[in-house]
């Protein structure tokens, strides 16, 4: 049996309140509360700097091409004369020096790579492009009288344009020569039995350096690699409990999260400083895969609260009902990060195989996390996907610095392409979780990758 005084007093006092004493709040805020968590948005300049560096590294590669200096050797400047008749005499005007003119047998395609001096004929030598015309020889008075003048296939800088004069009375005709071309001269006016003169006055040399027997090779060697790898997340993941009273919660978390296989993808360029050492800027992507499972066969949830009022509208009581049921939830958690890498390494070659080791820092450009976990607040599933309503702030948005180390065994398929296998490890210095989370998590992958490499230069 209730006491009427109790009931009346309770009813009148239950909702009784005084004005909120805000001076007390000011005191609490100033002296007793921990610092508010703020996440100031800092402009993260590091990803921009990393991308700029990579761009410069790639864009500067053409400047690494070392052009071999082509020295103009005018003083060794043979001129080949191809005659269709074997008995053509080529005589030189008195006063010219021999050794620049060689007779070659027809057809022209059999032009040898080099003619030695003293091979039957003598002729002038060209000492300067600007000097006086060179007398080459004469035409046979008997047909056929085609005389081909080849600027020579062995020249570094062949004649590109020259004044050609045939016969004593003809005016010089400017002729252009292409590389390895044969200039045929025919039907020029000359008297049978007379001695004609062919004058070739070089006007210009070809601008392009042409060394048919030699290849220009760059000093720098640059390669491009693409790699795909995998690693067991269970080996990569490490928990650290900061609050010893939360051990039960940690065990619950561990039992609800099962680790799968993580993936790594990387693209990098290798710029060789010499035959063994190189630097390798690149981009690296990691994905951590976990499965979150939650099951409660008797989960209790607040159903509804029913308020009971008397005829005067005064609250008499509030009845609360609960719902009990079976709840199951499975979520595939994903943690993804993109890093800029800058490694140094060296290689050792043995036939078609190449063994290398490389190491260096990786700077995180971005980190994304999505999925569910057991909430520390109410032991129920809660999302940590950034941007979602009521998401728990568990993971950071940037993983800052990590360290890479890997070895690589490759096999050259040909001069340019190789395949390789590469065990690797990436160690993150800071945890993936925010500093105020009492269970710190760190994922440092250790896996194996396979890839392709192509030599660019």
């Amino acid at each position, binding site marked *: 049996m209730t006491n*009427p005084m109790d009931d009346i007093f309770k009813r009148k006092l239950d909702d*009784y*309140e005084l004005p909120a*004493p805000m001076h*007390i*709040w000011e005191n609490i805020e100033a002296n007793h509360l921990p610092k508010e968590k703020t996440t100031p948005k800092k402009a993260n300049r590091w990803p921009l700097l990393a991308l700029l560096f990579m761009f410069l590294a790639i864009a500067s590669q053409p400047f690494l091409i070392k052009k071999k200096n082509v020295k103009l050797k005018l003083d060794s400047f043979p001129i080949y004369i191809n005659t269709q008749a074997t008995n053509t005499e080529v005589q030189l005007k008195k006063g010219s020096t021999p050794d620049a003119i060689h007779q070659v047998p027809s057809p022209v395609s059999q032009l040898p790579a080099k003619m030695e001096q003293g091979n039957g004929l003598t002729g002038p030598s060209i000492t300067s492009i600007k000097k006086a015309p060179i007398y080459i020889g004469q035409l046979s008075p008997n047909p056929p009288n085609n005389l081909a003048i080849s600027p020579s296939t062995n020249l570094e800088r062949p004649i590109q344009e020259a004044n050609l004069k045939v016969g004593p009375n003809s005016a010089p005709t400017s002729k252009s020569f292409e590389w390895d071309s044969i200039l045929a001269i025919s039907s020029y006016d000359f008297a049978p039995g007379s001695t004609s003169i062919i004058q070739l006055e070089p006007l210009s040399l070809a601008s392009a350096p042409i060394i048919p027997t030699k290849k220009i090779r760059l000093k720098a060697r640059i390669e491009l690699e693409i790699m795909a790898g995998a690693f067991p997340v269970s080996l990569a993941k490490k928990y650290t409990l900061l609050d010893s009273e939360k051990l039960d919660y940690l065990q619950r978390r561990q039992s609800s999260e099962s680790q799968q296989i993580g993936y790594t993808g990387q693209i990098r360029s290798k710029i060789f400083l010499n035959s063994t050492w190189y630097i390798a800027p690149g981009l690296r992507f990691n994905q951590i895969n976990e499965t979150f499972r939650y099951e409660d066969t008797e989960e209790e949830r607040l159903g509804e609260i029913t308020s009971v009022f008397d005829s005067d509208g005064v609250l008499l009581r509030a009845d609360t009902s609960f719902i009990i049921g079976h709840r199951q939830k499975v979520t595939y958690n994903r943690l993804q990060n993109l890093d800029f890498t800058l490694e140094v390494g060296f290689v050792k070659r043995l036939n078609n195989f190449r063994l290398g080791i490389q190491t260096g820092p990786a700077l995180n450009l971005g980190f994304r996390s999505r999925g569910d976990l057991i909430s520390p607040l109410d032991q129920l599933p809660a999302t940590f996907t950034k941007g979602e309503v009521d998401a728990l702030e568990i993971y950071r948005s940037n993983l800052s610095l990590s360290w890479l180390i890997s070895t690589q065994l490759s096999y050259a398929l040909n001069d340019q392409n190789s395949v390789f296998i590469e065990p690797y490890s990436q160690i993150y210095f800071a945890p993936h979780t925010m500093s105020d989370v009492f269970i710190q998590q760190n994922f440092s992958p250790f896996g194996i990758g396979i890839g392709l490499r192509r030599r660019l230069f």
Partner: protein
Amino acid sequence: MTEKKLIEGCVQNDRKCQQTVFQLYAGKMLAVCMRYTRHHMEAEDVVQEAFIKVFEHVEKFKFKGSFEGWIRKIVINTALKKFHKKSFQNEEIGIESFHDQITDPEIYESLSVNEIMEVIKRLPDGYRIVFNLYAIEGYNHKEIADLLGIQESTSRSQLVKARKMLQGMILDTQKIAV
């Protein structure tokens, strides 16, 4: 903002959420403290201490029952720490102060909240605390005994005495009014 968001904000030490919680509940809790303490300043001290505990331990709230009820328990426990066990055992009240029991509930209905607060405040510490816990907060004698570290029988006798004293004070008030 829902209560759940407020609480989660408090867990994250969000200042705005903490201030909102304080604004919502501090007035009511101050009124509760006024029934347990002897004067206003002491009540404010209890409110401050209690809310510090609320913000420190808010992550322990499991969303079972009302948040106000959870805060109220912390406030009451904090208020009770001010009193020593001897408060419930050593108080002596003269029997000649007791009056006849009031039979007409209208007399209680006619009292304003301030008048009720005033008569409760005039109770000795032990009577006041037991009366508050039993009649207003709804604890039973076993719970009160556990809370205060006293015997159940002590709780019962303190309640009876509290009621009789309250009735006497109320009747005195009515006589003066008449």
